[in-house]
């Protein structure tokens, strides 16, 4: 769930758009370079975009009694890096703002920042961190996707708290309120997103292993059984 159209004061809307713009320019350059140097990766890129598209459309119920949706940016961030995924995340947000009145054009800068930028960087960073620590691949992927999702909605809450500080308790008071709305709702959804990302990445690894290894050499080979058992314990 993103910040609704018109619900950020003009200054904030412009500010977040300016903050997001350089990442998009960087991402578009990375994306064109990627397609020029590894044109055979375009199908996997399409699948990563498709994953973000599909997951963003799934509004799931949560323990707080409200609904929200996962973001799906973790998969692409792990495979193509955070810059490229910024662009795909932006496209998803644009589609939803224009056709679904979900999110909005005036808030697309802020929403791009939380979902496409922070979400991608957190997911990518955690995956790389997990790989460096030699954690099991599926665990790194799960943590990257789940916490990237959670980070997105934490940022959304802070963005709203910054725009609407509580008259008595200021920024902190509002932050608690918005975190209660977005971040707590998101916890079970983030777990779902982590599980689905492990599932789809392992499908890609077993069917398109060569293409995946060309993108991220560390993802070579699939240990299917250890993956399913390990992550079902986590769930």
């Amino acid at each position, binding site marked *: 769930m993103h910040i*609704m159209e018109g619900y950020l004061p003009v200054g904030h809307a412009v500010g977040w758009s300016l903050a997001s713009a350089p990442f998009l320019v960087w991402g578009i350059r990375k994306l064109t370079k990627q397609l020029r140097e590894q044109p055979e990766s375009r199908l996997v890129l399409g699948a990563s975009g498709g*994953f973000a598209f*599909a997951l963003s459309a799934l509004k*799931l*119920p949560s323990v707080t009694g409200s*609904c929200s949706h996962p973001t799906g940016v973790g998969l692409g961030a792990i495979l193509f890096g955070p810059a490229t995924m910024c662009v795909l995340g932006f496209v998803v947000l644009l589609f939803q703002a224009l056709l*679904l*009145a979900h999110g909005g054009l005036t808030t697309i800068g802020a929403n791009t920042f939380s979902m496409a930028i922070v979400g991608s960087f957190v997911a990518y960073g955690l995956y790389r961190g997990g790989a460096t620590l030699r954690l099991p691949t599926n665990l790194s992927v799960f943590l990257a996707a789940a916490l990237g999702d959670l980070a997105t909605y934490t940022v959304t809450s802070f963005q709203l708290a910054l725009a609407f500080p509580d008259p008595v308790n200021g920024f902190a008071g509002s932050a608690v309120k918005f975190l209660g709305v977005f971040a707590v709702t998101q916890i079970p959804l983030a777990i779902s997103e982590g599980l689905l990302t492990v599932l789809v990445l392992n499908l890609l690894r077993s069917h398109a292993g060569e293409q995946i290894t060309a993108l991220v050499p560390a993802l070579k080979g699939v240990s299917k059984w250890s993956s399913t058992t390990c992550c079902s314990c986590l769930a």
Partner: protein
Amino acid sequence: MLLLLGVVVLALIPLFTVKPAHEGEEIFGGADGHAESAITEIRPDYQPWFTPLWEPPSGEIESLLFGLQAALGAGAIAYCLGYYRGRRGAAKPADAALG
């Protein structure tokens, strides 16, 4: 399979455990709607200064577009998986005949 089961269980639990606080109260509304009421609580005078250029004219049309979005995404993943699976089968016809 276990992974999918985990996702289904996570989605089902709230449906059975969460009950409306008052009789007849609607639950499982969007988190963005809840944020909207939180904003109104903090700044009762705040008026959104921009409205969506186009809104789906009804809940049905909205669910059509959300369904389309999910279908397009799933289609892209399935195309990619099917393409590489098929290509590998074509490269090794013996395996394909066996499998």
